[in-house]
């Protein structure tokens, strides 16, 4: 029918529909231009560097670049018996350059990650190769040390041929690829990371539970008290929230120390003897107590803002219809607070899972989390690719939690203070 009716025109003679579309487009561009500076800034300084972390974590070009001729020659080698003379010659030529440039130490470190015992034989080779005669390099190299005649070591070199590796990710869950390319667990005594992942999850989970159990009653009290009292009590929640994290951690260090006030109190009420004051810091207890107190406001605020919107007449209605106060609470009030519970738990869990400062200060050896391990590799061992790999595994976990949460409660249901 529209083809027959005359199109509505603006005063300029352009069809109204077109003119509106144009205006709409102009508005779109205007809005986008306002967002663009921040978006661009974050993409460059934040989002791309996270991508860069991924590239770093799988990058393994270093060895490949150091031994180009060797890897070229190795393409023909099936890896069963000792490689042929060409491989030995290529390796000798590559290694001579590294010795001349004095970078062979880096190669030794890298290959030693792959198989123990490389460091000493590479050093010995660096000394001996100066006197090498031309030709028959296979024999000459094998004479330097008997390990050079061991095919395992040549296989180890070949394993480093690809430009990319997922070895760091395997290392993050205490696994590695053995000589035959099978993925196996490291020996029991060296399985540190898996334990850390589980401990991180455990601490984050229990801190969330403790926060929820403590926050629910006080959020309820804050939401039901008359304004003039609740405002005063709200300060108790907001003041810790605005106070420096380090100040709060410091105060827990004072409270929990062996001669500290909490222990004094325990002795005073006769819970423990003066001589056997328990160690409450530098272990899991310290991490639990301090993290729960620090993260508690993040649970109280979303709960409070949801509870504030629930009309008290609903509970009264429940009771007047014959429910006991407990039934009325459980059937009417509690279900209405679920968006707040979801938001609070999500917030606290995600903050707890990436916590670094507090566990490092009060956690000791048994209370540290995966983020402490990441920081350790960033600052002490300088194994940045491993730190990146673990960071990304943590990030993946966090994103998975968001996804599950979105499926269960819906991200739009989040309400923040």
């Amino acid at each position, binding site marked *: 029918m529209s083809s027959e009716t005359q199109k509505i025109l603006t005063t300029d003679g352009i069809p109204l529909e077109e003119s509106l579309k144009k205006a709409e487009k102009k508005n779109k561009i*205007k809005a986008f231009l*306002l*967002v663009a500076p*921040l978006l661009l800034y974050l993409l460059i300084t934040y989002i791309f560097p996270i991508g860069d972390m991924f590239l770093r974590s799988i990058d393994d070009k270093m060895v490949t670049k150091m031994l180009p001729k060797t890897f070229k020659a190795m393409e023909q080698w099936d890896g069963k018996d000792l490689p042929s003379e060409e491989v030995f010659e290529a390796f000798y030529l590559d290694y001579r350059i590294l010795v001349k440039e004095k970078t062979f130490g880096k190669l030794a470190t890298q290959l030693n990650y792959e198989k123990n015992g490389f460091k000493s034989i590479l050093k010995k080779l660096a000394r001996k190769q100066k006197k090498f005669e031309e030709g028959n390099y296979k024999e000459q190299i094998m004479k330097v040390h008997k390990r050079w005649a061991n095919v395992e070591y040549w296989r180890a070199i070949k394993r480093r041929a690809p430009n990319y590796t997922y070895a760091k990710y395997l290392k993050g869950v205490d696994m590695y690829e053995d000589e035959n390319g099978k993925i196996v667990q490291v020996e029991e005594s060296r399985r540190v990371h898996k334990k850390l992942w589980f401990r991180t999850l455990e601490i984050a989970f229990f801190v969330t539970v403790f926060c929820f159990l403590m926050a629910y009653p006080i959020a309820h009290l804050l939401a039901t008290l008359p304004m003039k009292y609740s405002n005063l009590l709200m300060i108790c929640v907001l003041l810790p929230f*605005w106070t*420096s994290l380090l100040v709060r951690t*410091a105060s827990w260090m004072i409270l929990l120390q062996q001669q500290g006030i909490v222990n004094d109190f325990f002795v005073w009420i006769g819970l423990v003897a003066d001589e056997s004051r328990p160690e409450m810091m530098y272990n899991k207890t310290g991490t639990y107590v301090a993290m729960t*107190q620090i993260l508690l406001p993040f649970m109280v605020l979303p709960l409070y803002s949801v509870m504030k919107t629930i009309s008290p007449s609903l509970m009264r209605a429940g009771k007047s219809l014959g429910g006991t106060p407990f039934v009325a609470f459980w059937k009417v009030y509690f279900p209405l607070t679920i968006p707040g519970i979801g938001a609070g738990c999500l917030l606290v869990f995600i903050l707890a899972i990436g916590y670094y400062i507090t566990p490092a200060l009060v956690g000791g050896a048994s209370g540290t989390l995966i983020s402490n391990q990441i920081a350790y590799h960033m600052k002490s061992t300088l194994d940045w690719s491993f730190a990146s790999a673990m960071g990304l595994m943590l990030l993946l976990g966090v994103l998975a939690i968001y996804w599950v949460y979105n499926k269960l409660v819906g991200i739009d249901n989040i309400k*923040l203070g």
Partner: protein
Amino acid sequence: MALPKYTETHYRIWHYFYLLICTCVFIFLIAPLFVIFPLSFNAEEFLVFSDGMKRLDPDAFSLRWYHDMIYGTKNPWGLAAKNSFIIAIFATLGSVLLGTVAALGLSSRHMPYKALIMAILISPMIVPLIISGVAIFFFIAKVGLAGTHLGIILSHIILGTPFVVITVTATLSGFDHSVTRAASSLGSDPVNTFMKITLPLILPGVISGGLFAFVTSFDEVVVVLFLAGLENTTIPIQMWTGLREQLSPTILAVATCLIVLSVLILVTAELLRRRSERLRGINR
């Protein structure tokens, strides 16, 4: 919360039990902050209440740790405070500027891909700090700004903007757009409209977002630990080193000052929130 007279006994008991639990939780929340306060006036070097303090003996209290904080010879607190304030102020300005402009665009109903862009803009708040720290460190080191004030300011802008974006979009959600249309129909250009109409109305949101950004930067340790050299040490870094090595009472003096600062910020934030609610016509 007074109970009606007809309440049965076991509900009455339950009610008092509930109040007791609440009291305990409130003490758990706030008491740790009050421990620091008296101990920072301790005349002795130990971090426990001395017998003199328990007797309220005036000689057991002193200001020596405050004196040490300000005039102590080996103390880096002066430099740290200066750095912290410079970094936090510039980071806040950057966050507020970028964040407010972006929030204006985001609140427009014409904004395409709103959900995706919002997710990107607030991602620094959602991603665990340690991961942000690693990523930001790689970027800042790559552009050669590690160990400079500028590098730390740039990284704190990243961490601060989500707060500004969130508070300002929240303020704008109750914003009556007809007032800006009225202004333009009366011949005002967009910049003038923004400065004279929009900004004064959203100012409480902008300032409280700025406060969040300020506190985030002022209290930030993880990224600075990766980035800072000796000359850009900040208060949190000094506290971190102090707490790791040896808990000295001087740290408590600094902590007390920080608590006072946070009380000031809390009061400002509360006043702003009330003002903003009044302006938006939300009455409780």
